C-alpha cells in the first residue's frame, strides 16, 4: 500500500498547477465571482470559457477520453490530481453533459460519422449539450418514459415532454431517450437514444425556477420534431443499454471530494471571522465538532474514491461502487452547504440578485450561502436519487 505520488505524477501535478496559474483568465474569475456574490446566473461564456481553454491543451477538457478521440487519457491518479488542482484553484467546473455523458456514449456506441460530427465540438467546448432523460411521469422509474419517436421515411417524429433539462437554455444539442417501440414486452426494451439539434422546429424550452430563485433547469417540449434517422445512436430499441452505461459514467465524478475539501477550508475561514459567544465561531465546541465530522467523512470518502480509482486502473471500469460515491459525496456536499449557511448566522437571510435588491448587505462571504444550501437539496435527488442508488447497491453488490 502506497499513496505517495510517483515522480511522474508529481511532475504532472506541477504541470497542471502551472497551467492553471498561467492560463485561467482573471476576467473569468472576476466575472463569476461578482455574479455569484449577487446571486446572478452565469452566462454561457462563463460556463464554457475554461472548457475551451482546456480543449486546446493536451485534451485536458476530456481527462478520461481515449487519445484517439482527442482526450487526455489520463491515468486514474492523474485524473485525481487534475481534479484536485482545479478544485484548489477554484476553477469553474466543466459542464458534464458533453464530456462525461454523451461523449463516451458516442465514441463507444456511435458510428464514424457521428464521432466526426460531434466529438470535436464536445472536446473544444463549442457545442453545448443538455440531457433529455427525465419526464414529468418518469423520474426514478426512468424506463417508463413516454416521449415517442415514430419513424417516417428517413426521419423520426418526436413528441413529448422532457423535464429537469439542466441548462437547456444554452444548449445546441440534446441527447434524448425516446420510446420507439410502445409494445415491447418490457418497458426497457422499447427505448432508443437520439441526438437532437435544439434548433429543430417544434422544440420549446421553458424555465423552471428552483427554490433559491436560480434558473438551472427547464421543461423541454417536443411537438412533431423531425429528427434525421442518422441521429440514432447504435441500434433502435437498444437505448436503455447506452443509458445505463452513461449513468455509470455520470456517477464516477460525482463524489466531488476535492471541491468539498476546498469548501470546508472556506467554512473554517468564515468561522474564524464570525463571532459567537464573544469569540470566533471556530472556537465554539458544537460548531467545531460538526466541521470535524464533515472532515472525517470526507477523508474516508477520499480514500474510498482512491480505492475505486486503483481498481479502475487495474482495468475495471466504473461499477456499482460509483453509487456509493454518489450517496456519500452528495451527503457531504449537503452537510457542507448547510455548515456554510449556519456559519453566517443572520446573514443567511438576505436574498440578493433579485429585481428588488441589487446591493450588498453584510459580509461578502455570506452572500448566497443559504441559496446554495437550498439549491443543493437537489444533489441527493439528481443523477438517480440516493434511494435508487441504494437499490442499485442492494441488487448489484449485495445480491439482495
Amino acid at each position, binding site marked *: 500500500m502506497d499513496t505517495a505520488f510517483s515522480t511522474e505524477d508529481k511532475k504532472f501535478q506541477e504541470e497542471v498547477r502551472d497551467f492553471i496559474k498561467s492560463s485561467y483568465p482573471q476576467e473569468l474569475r472576476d466575472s463569476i465571482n461578482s455574479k455569484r456574490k449577487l446571486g446572478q446566473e452565469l452566462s454561457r461564456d462563463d460556463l464554457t470559457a475554461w472548457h475551451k481553454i482546456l480543449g486546446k491543451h493536451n485534451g485536458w477538457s476530456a481527462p478520461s477520453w481515449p487519445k484517439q478521440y482527442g482526450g487526455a487519457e489520463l491515468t486514474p491518479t492523474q485524473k485525481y490530481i487534475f481534479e484536485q488542482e482545479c478544485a484548489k484553484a477554484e476553477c469553474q467546473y466543466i459542464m458534464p453533459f458533453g464530456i462525461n455523458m454523451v461523449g463516451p456514449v458516442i465514441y463507444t456506441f456511435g458510428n464514424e460519422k457521428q464521432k466526426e460530427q460531434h466529438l470535436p465540438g464536445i472536446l473544444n467546448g463549442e457545442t453545448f449539450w443538455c440531457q433529455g432523460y427525465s419526464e414529468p411521469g418518469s423520474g426514478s422509474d426512468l424506463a417508463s418514459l413516454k416521449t415517442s419517436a415514430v419513424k417516417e421515411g428517413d426521419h423520426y417524429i418526436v413528441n413529448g415532454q422532457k423535464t429537469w433539462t439542466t441548462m437547456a437554455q444554452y444548449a445546441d444539442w440534446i441527447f434524448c431517450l425516446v420510446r420507439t417501440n410502445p409494445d415491447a414486452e418490457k418497458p426497457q426494451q422499447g427505448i432508443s437514444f437520439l441526438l437532437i439539434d435544439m434548433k429543430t422546429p417544434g422544440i420549446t424550452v421553458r424555465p423552471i425556477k428552483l427554490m433559491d430563485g436560480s434558473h438551472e433547469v427547464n421543461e423541454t417540449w417536443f411537438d412533431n420534431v423531425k429528427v434525421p434517422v442518422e441521429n440514432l445512436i447504435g441500434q433502435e430499441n437498444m437505448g436503455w443499454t447506452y443509458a445505463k452505461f452513461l449513468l455509470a459514467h455520470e456517477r464516477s465524478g460525482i463524489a466531488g471530494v476535492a471541491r468539498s475539501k476546498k469548501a470546508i477550508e472556506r467554512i473554517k475561514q468564515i468561522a474564524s471571522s464570525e463571532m459567537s459567544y464573544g469569540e470566533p465561531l471556530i472556537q465554539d465546541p458544537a460548531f467545531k465538532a460538526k466541521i470535524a465530522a464533515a472532515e472525517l467523512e470526507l477523508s*474516508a470518502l477520499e480514500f474510498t474514491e482512491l480505492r475505486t480509482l486503483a481498481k479502475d486502473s487495474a482495468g475495471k471500469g466504473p461499477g456499482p461502487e460509483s453509487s456509493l460515491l454518489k450517496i456519500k459525496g452528495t451527503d457531504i456536499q449537503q452537510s457542507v452547504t448547510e455548515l456554510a449557511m449556519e456559519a453566517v448566522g443572520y446573514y443567511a437571510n438576505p436574498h440578493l440578485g433579485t429585481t428588488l435588491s441589487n446591493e450588498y448587505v453584510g459580509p461578502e462571504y455570506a452572500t448566497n450561502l443559504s441559496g446554495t444550501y437550498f439549491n443543493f437539496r437537489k444533489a441527493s435527488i439528481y443523477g438517480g436519487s440516493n434511494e435508487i442508488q441504494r437499490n442499485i447497491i442492494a441488487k448489484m453488490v449485495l445480491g439482495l
Partner: protein
Amino acid sequence: MNFDFTEEQTLLDNMVTSFVRDNYDWDTRCNIVKSEEGWKEENWKQFAELGLLGVPFEEQYGGLGGKPTDLMIVMEQFGKGLVVEPYLPSVILAGGLISKLGTETQKNEIIPEIISGHRRYVFAYAEPQSRFDLFDIKTSATQKNENYIINGFKSVVFGASSATHLIIAARTSDDQRSKSGITLFLVDVKSDGITLQNYPTIDEYRASEVVIENLNVSSENILGTVNDAYDTIEEVVDISTIAACSEAVGILQVLKDSTTEYCKNRKQFGQPISKNQVIQHRLVDMMIEYEQAKSILYMAITADHSNSEERQKATSAAKARIGKAIKSLGESSIQLHGGMGVVDEYNVSHYFKRATMIGVLFGNVDYHMKRYTDLTQSNIDTFDKDSSISLS
C-alpha cells in the same frame, strides 16, 4: 498509488487467515474463553513458530521489521476470528515501548524472549481517574539509593493475567496531570508489591486491576529516560490505536457479511426478509459504513507517521470515524438479526461486544474528536475578502 499488498504481505495475510480458519472455529473459541486462563498458551507457541510475535520488531533483534500495513493484516484477521490471545497489548503496545525506548542491552535481552513466546509484557498505564489521558498519573516512583519504590493503582490492564512482566508508567516528578515527569519501569509480574485482581471483560478477554505497594525496582529496569516517557507513550499508543482500528475493521466485515447472509435466509411473510426495501437500505448503509471505515483505516496506515502531528491527526480521525461505524453498523447487525442478535449462543453478539469495547480502547469517539479538532482547528486564517466561496 496502489492499495495492493506486497508478495510478503499476501503470504502473511494467507498465513494468519489459515491460522484462524484451522485453529479458531467457533466452538474452539468458546472453550478458550470459558477456560480458567482465558487464552491458550498452545496458540501463543504457534504464533511464535509462525513468526507472528516478531512482526513489529527490527530484524537485528530477530523480528520481521514489519510496517503498519503488516500489523493491519494480522489484526484484521484476528478481528475476523475474535482471537483473544493478548497480541495487541503485549506484542504491539508493550513491544512497541521496548523497541522505541530500550537500551541495546535491554533490547538484546528482551525482544528475542518476546519473539520466542517466552515472555509477555503488558503496559499498565490507565488509572481510575485518568480516563483516556495518558499523562494523568498518580502512581508514584520515589528514588531510594539505586532503586525506586513504586506505589499506586492501575486500572483495566489487558492481558496482565497471562503476562510475565509489566511495564508500569509512574510519576517521578511534576503534577498528576503533567506530561513531563513520567517514567516507565520493567517489572516481573510476580514481584513482591504487585497484586493482580483478574477478571473477564464483557467481550470475553481478560484484564486486571493492579495494586502496587512498595514495589522495589532497580534503576537498571527503567525503560527510557527518567521523566521523559510521555512522547513515546503517545506515539506507541497511536500505533496500537491504528492496530485496534484494524481489528475493528475485520470485525465489521464479519458483521456486515453475516448480517447480509442472515437476511437472505431468514424468511417471514413467505419470503426472505432481504426482499423488503427497508431491510435492503439498512444493509446498504452498513456496507457504506464498512467501506468508509476501511478507507479511513487506509488513510491512517499510509499517513506520514514520522511527523508526529500528522500521525496524531490521522490516528484520531480513524479512531473517531471507526468508532462511529462500530456503533451504527454494529447496532444494525443486532437489529437485523432480530431475537438471534441478542442471544449469547449466536456469534453476532460476540462480534458486536468486542467491536464496542474496541470503541472504548485508547479513547472513545468524543475523546478522539476533541483531539482531532484541537490539532486541526487552531491557527486558521480569517477570511480573505477578495475571493468568493464556491460550493458547487
